[in-house]
């Protein structure tokens, strides 16, 4: 194959905005990551763009042993989203370390390894296997897979169980490698789970995993997925995700958040940043647009520049600031009933 035929996406130059972001002491060159389960381990996407241009590659959740996953159909398209019930198919941690993490390390990518288990002991062993591995930049603890037959097994639905898993992973992970807990939106109070994870040693939080959903095929009159229920992702869940990021950041403003859920454009990413995310993952959008992470990065940089923001870090959580003076130039015909918040206008001192 000649060089000429290799047409990877070449990112246009970015505006002069400092896109670097710090997650629990680790600096990433930019805030756009892949999302777990939406990018495999980066190799497939590397034919479309250079995966080292990403802030980080978040790999598909890996378990201790090889896992076949669930039967097909595993996927159903839904309005502005999709349901999946893959069931954590994967090669197991040993094959992952040998084939996938080593590839990411050789490639120079920043690997964020997502791990999943059925018990605290599984997570402990996974963290131990990862310890000291070249290329490992961060660990994302998937405690929130929605595709389980027993909802009691979703660690992220129970603060005690979530804390136990996070503590085990943190204790067995090298210092300097941040441990992020991935939260489920399918809880009454996501802040309570977030606090439990942070108290147990989580350095940051990934917000959010998919929502448990279901669709029925009206032709066969049976559930469309072989697994019956599945995880809902895509732009359909974005407002839920933004709300979760907002609530978590409001309660725990010093805890870094990796935000995800239906990000399709740079402005979507900016919403998450404004809500309190220090970085974002682009997930389901990649299925329809493999170069989307690079486009989102480019659009985000421009969106920041257009708003006169020189540093991404200045925008993190910006939507939480108090309302600023807003005086409409002329009466707003539809906004009349909304209270207009006005702050006192200051004037220069009168000169003598």
């Amino acid at each position, binding site marked *: 194959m000649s060089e000429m035929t290799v047409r990877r996406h070449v990112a246009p130059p970015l505006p002069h905005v400092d896109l670097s972001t710090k997650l629990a002491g680790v600096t990433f060159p930019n805030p756009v990551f892949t999302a777990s389960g939406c990018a495999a381990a980066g190799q497939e996407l590397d034919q479309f763009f250079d995966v080292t241009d990403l802030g980080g590659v978040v790999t598909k959740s890996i378990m201790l042993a090889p896992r076949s996953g669930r039967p097909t159909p595993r996927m159903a398209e839904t309005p502005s989203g999709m349901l999946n019930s893959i069931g954590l198919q994967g090669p197991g941690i040993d094959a992952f370390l040998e084939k996938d993490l080593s590839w990411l390390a050789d490639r120079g990518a920043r690997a964020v390894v997502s791990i999943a288990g059925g018990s605290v002991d599984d997570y402990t062993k996974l963290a131990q296997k990862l310890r000291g591995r070249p290329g490992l930049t961060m660990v994302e603890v998937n405690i929130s897979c929605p595709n389980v037959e027993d909802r009691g097994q979703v660690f992220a639905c129970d603060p005690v169980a979530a804390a136990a898993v996070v503590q085990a992973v943190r204790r067995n992970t090298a210092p300097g490698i941040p441990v992020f807990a991935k939260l489920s939106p399918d809880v009454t109070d996501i802040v309570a789970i977030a606090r439990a994870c942070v108290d147990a040693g989580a350095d940051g939080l990934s917000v959010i995993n998919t929502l448990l959903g279901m669709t029925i095929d009206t032709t066969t009159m049976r559930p469309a997925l072989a697994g019956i229920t599945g995880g809902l992702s895509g732009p359909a869940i974005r407002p839920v995700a933004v709300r979760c990021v907002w609530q978590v950041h409001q309660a725990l403003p010093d805890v870094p958040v990796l935000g995800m859920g239906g990000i399709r454009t740079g402005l979507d990413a900016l919403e998450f940043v404004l809500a309190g995310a220090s970085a974002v993952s682009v997930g389901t959008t990649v299925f329809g647009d*493999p170069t989307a992470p690079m486009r989102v990065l480019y659009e985000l940089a421009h969106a920041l520049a257009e708003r006169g923001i020189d540093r991404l870090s200045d925008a993190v959580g910006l939507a939480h600031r108090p309302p600023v003076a807003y005086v409409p130039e002329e009466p707003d015909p539809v906004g009349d009933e909304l209270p207009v918040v006005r702050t006192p206008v200051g004037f220069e001192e009168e000169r003598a």
Partner: protein
Amino acid sequence: MAVQVQGEVLSIRRVGAYNAMTVVAPGIAELTRPGHFVAVQVGGPESSMLLRRAFAIYDVKERGVYGGTVEFVFAVHGKGTAWLASRRPQDKLDVVGPLGKPFRLPTSRVNATLVGGGYGAAPLLPLASALRERGSRVDFVLGAGSADRLFGQLDAKRIGTTIAVTTDDGSVGERGRVSDVLPEVLDRTGSEVIYACGPMAMLKSVSAIAAERGIPCQVAVEESMACGIGVCMTCVLPVIGDDGVSRMVRSCVEGPVFLGDRVRWDDVGTVPSDVLGAPVPVASTGGGN
């Protein structure tokens, strides 16, 4: 190596019950081999349909007046394909390709029988041309539910030595299935290899006939996909590996072309208990993305 191209529709025409669409998509034609497929975005940039639609490549031209073109054939199944069928020349279309593992060509001259079901015949036509260029004999068996769902008959007559046609309703050719006439065709032509593309049930029966006779058989499967590039893990089916171990493999990157005797046809849509990593029949311990 696949590329993502902002293409432009050059033409769309009705072929019986199907649509054949040609897209100017520079960079894809040069890399395409018979059996490759493309994944197409549907609904435009603001579409609520996020997932790509995958279609086997029917024809490519590396250097047309307009640059490289790709042609594929599709049936309208839902909103996404209905949108695609409503595209007109010069409309933009985001295409990723070529994807998947193509058909493997024999290294020597052979007698090959190509079996197509419905528009599954589309990728067999460029394959037939490639086989003919290498001096092989090509015979066709084409089947469909009805006459309007037969595809590629004219091409097949031009390229192939013989062509046998079956339809479920007998509206053209013999009434029945391709598997009803395939044994006779294999006997008559002395075929040494079989290539097939079409519905899973057809591929299963063709693979069984090939296995009975010890004839190597390559099949291109059709599984529903979300991405087509190997990252979503939705298009899996149980396939026996070179090491004898069955795995749930992705039809988009490990396929769509498989050896017919390696696919566990009876287990498609299930996770057989002996595949690598199959759940232990006790309580399930989780699942997820």
